[in-house]
């Protein structure tokens, strides 16, 4: 069955530069910002490639890496290029990720002027020691200024990224960070559990035994308390790691990833999806630049998803979101009647308080989201 494609696609642009690598991060980025002009040139070329294939978008997301390493005029030029090439709906959600060390109030105002209407600030923590531990290049003061500046600049859709379950962090310490974040009444919060990645500086410290790995019970405690507290404070826990002040504040762009809406990812390592096909660019910036300079597609790989694979994805993605799985829609789109195939397991999960089956939907409850990977094994 071919997935429906009535929804408009999302556009993602990956800016693969960081001034320095954070100690926990294993995402792809390079620190040689001298490559930025060449990168933009290549990116423009890549934009042209998709002129025909993708006509309209209703979300645009500038992520990274660190998009706030670009100069304002470069952002402006990039947006102009995108607008010239594609149709971006007037009501589109246009998001940019910002490192608190980079832009000040006036810069942020300028971004607004360019039509960027959603800002996501990589705060990560509001505790000085934790920021040092994470290897962030901003301090607590800069994080707070960034939040104030974003508000002062007139952004009405502000998101904050936070990380919890840090080495030595207590529930009380995390609560403190959350309280301070809520003082700014952000529209959106992404609260990520620290993933300890082998090979990263922080991962190595764990491997050396400098920090104990968190227990499952503690991890659960962090997760449940975060969810309870933020929901109590008026946020909707709409996805495992994401909270929004009302569903209209949930990231429209990210939601496309979760329900097989088409998306186009540009820049090194970006992924795209359309008509049951997913493809992804080389992560290496050099390779990306080289390919485009020689008029080659910078695509590293692609796959045609079988119906079974789409079904598997829809299950695990759906079970990560509060909205859950629309049983009727799932049956029509992927050809699987979940209640018929997995009824006993789903009912058992229902009895265990992990999910609820109601109104034609299967929805994870809070305790279910805590074990979303386990639910995904359905």
């Amino acid at each position, binding site marked *: 069955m071919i997935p429906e494609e009535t929804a408009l696609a999302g556009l993602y642009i990956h800016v693969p530069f960081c001034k320095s690598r954070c100690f926990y991060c294993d995402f792809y980025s390079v620190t040689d910002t001298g490559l930025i002009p060449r990168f933009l040139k290549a990116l423009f070329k890549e934009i042209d490639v998709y002129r025909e294939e993708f006509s309209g978008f209703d979300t645009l997301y500038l992520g990274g890496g660190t998009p706030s390493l670009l100069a304002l005029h470069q952002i402006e030029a990039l947006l102009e290029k995108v607008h010239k090439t594609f149709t971006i709906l007037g009501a589109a959600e246009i998001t940019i990720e910002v490192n608190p060390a980079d832009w000040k109030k006036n810069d942020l105002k300028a971004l607004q002027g360019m039509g960027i209407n959603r800002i996501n600030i990589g705060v990560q923590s509001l505790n000085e020691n934790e920021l040092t531990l994470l290897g962030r290049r901003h301090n607590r003061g800069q994080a707070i200024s960034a939040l104030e500046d974003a508000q002062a600049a007139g952004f009405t859709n502000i998101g904050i990224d936070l990380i919890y379950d840090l080495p030595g962090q207590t529930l009380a310490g995390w609560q403190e960070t959350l309280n301070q974040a809520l003082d700014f009444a952000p529209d959106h919060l992404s609260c990520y559990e*620290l993933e300890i990645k082998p090979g990263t500086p922080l991962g190595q410290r764990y491997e050396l035994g400098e920090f104990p790995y968190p227990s*499952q019970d503690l991890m659960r405690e962090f997760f449940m308390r975060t969810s309870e507290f933020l929901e109590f404070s008026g946020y909707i826990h709409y996805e495992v790691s994401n909270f929004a002040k009302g569903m209209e504040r949930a990231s429209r762009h990210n939601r496309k990833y*979760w329900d097989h809406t088409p998306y186009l990812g540009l820049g090194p390592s970006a992924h795209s999806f359309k008509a049951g096909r997913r493809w992804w660019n080389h992560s290496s910036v050099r390779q990306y630049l080289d390919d485009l300079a020689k008029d080659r597609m910078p695509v590293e790989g692609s796959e045609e998803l079988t119906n079974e694979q789409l079904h598997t*994805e829809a299950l*695990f993605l759906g079970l990560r979101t509060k909205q859950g799985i629309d049983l009727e829609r799932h049956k029509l789109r992927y050809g699987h009647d979940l209640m018929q195939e997995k009824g006993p397991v789903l009912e058992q999960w229902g009895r265990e308080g992990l999910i609820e089956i109601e109104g034609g939907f299967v929805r994870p409850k809070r305790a279910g989201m*805590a*074990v979303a*990977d386990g639910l995904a094994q359905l």
Partner: protein
Amino acid sequence: MEYIRNFSIIAHIDHGKSTLADRLILRTGVCDVRTYKDQMLDNMDIERERGITIKSQAITLPYQAKDGKTYSLNLIDTPGHVDFSYEVSRSLASCEGVLLLIDAAQGVQAQTVANLYLAMEHDLEIIPVINKIDLPSADVERVIEQIDAELGLDPDTHLTCSAKEGIGIDDILEAIVRRVSAPRGDAEAPLSALIFDAHYDSFRGTVINCRIFDGKVRSGDTIHFMFNDSIYRVEEVGHFLMTRQKREQLEAGEVGYIIAGVKTVSDVSIGDTITLEDRPCAKPLSGFKEVKPVVFASIYPIASDDYEDLADSLEKYKLNDAAFIYEKDSSVALGQGFRCGFLGLLHLDIVQERLEREYDLSIILSVPSVRYRFTLQDGTELYVDNPAHYPGASAIEKSEEPYIRAAMMMPERYVGAVMSLCMEKRGIQKNMNYPSPSRAELVFEMPLAEVIYDFYDRFKSVTQGYGSYDYDLIDYRESKLVLLDILVNGEKVDALSQIVHRDRARARGVQACDRLKDEIPRQMYKIAIQGAIGGEIISRSTISAYRKDVTAKCYGGDITRKRKLLEKQKKGKKRMKMIGSVSIPQSAFLAVLKSDKD
């Protein structure tokens, strides 16, 4: 015959037996470096990985000695585990001498002694060889002292070598020629040949390895297997070099192979005597024993669709393993499968691993059991090797279980520990003596059921690897037996049931619940595990629900990575059997038997 030497290498595990065999093969030029594969004699993957030899093999090495004559040195490789001790004894019966290999760093170990005694039983020339002299930790002087004091051998007879570095190999070959006696036998007498191994060749059928004691055999002869009482016509005889080398005939003193249109290895018994039909020898060679399985377990496919594949694979596997037996079986919890018999737990492990590896099957083995004997109220006698067929307490007049006689050797200092282990295993001490001042021999009679479980591991552990043992089945003895059932979330899992001694039932139940708690991974909800005897719950454990998994990010648009991870996890889950709503891993079924004392 004067120019033949039949010998074997015996050693404690990892003392370098296979490496030395490879060296001898390379040195005598049977195979050159180009075709040299590490440890050529151990050619099954499992053998190589576990570092043990499972089947006996033989290879003929042509060697020109310093006296200018060319000798045929027949190297007979032997298995190294108690499950296969009968095969070892038949291999040694085919030799005149052995190289007793001792690691220069580790010194004399349990199997060194056990193997020495086996060799002595067969009256073989023993050449002590100290290996690994190149190691920095080598202590040759100490090993020489041990050869004298612990083994009671003349320390002046030792040789030294490094099989790895190829040092001392020539001296070993010369010593084989000079010290191992040439085989004796009468080529003109009626044929008598000892079968010490057989393996299956998909083109030629069963290839029989044998030692000719008297007479000769050539293609076209009609041969008689004396124990099996079967008749075959010889198609081909020859020697093994790296491959089969066809010969006109095999005669007294030689080691070689016979191909005679024998369909499966099960048609051949290790230890049987081959003679000629028209001119038979007076009596078979001594030492024949029929090998019977003593441990039984059921094998089920994890996915019931694989049943036919499993049936085919067992049929094929059986072609090359005469000791393995099987028949159809079914379980309420696990569906259609097969009841199988094994020589011991190692044999069982090997069969399981080969089925999975060579036939790509995912299988579950039920809890292993011995064969019990029940006399029912109505007087009928019933043998039960499958707890699912337990007749029920009220129907039973008398219960009996098989007993063994175990002979154990160990340095004196471990006697106390071994005795208490044997008592714990319901053993009865029969004998104790000191063959040499520091070494003790203990003889116990014990229920076989106690021995198959974890006795081997526990014995090795309490003697710190210095003990060795061997056992023989003796008889059935009356015993108070009950059926211990295991319930997972209230559902009885028949494949986990065991027949146990009444006095041990509670301990076993507790142990099974504890082990299952460790083996069954946390799942999405709480799982109760209970042990029960006739409906009465005697033990219980709980596996708490999965609490949290790493779910932080779903990387931008990279859903592919997440899906692939999930597909991999789901594949891993295929190695588990769903019983009711609980996934039970393969390992759980064997684990219930293992105690947690190690």
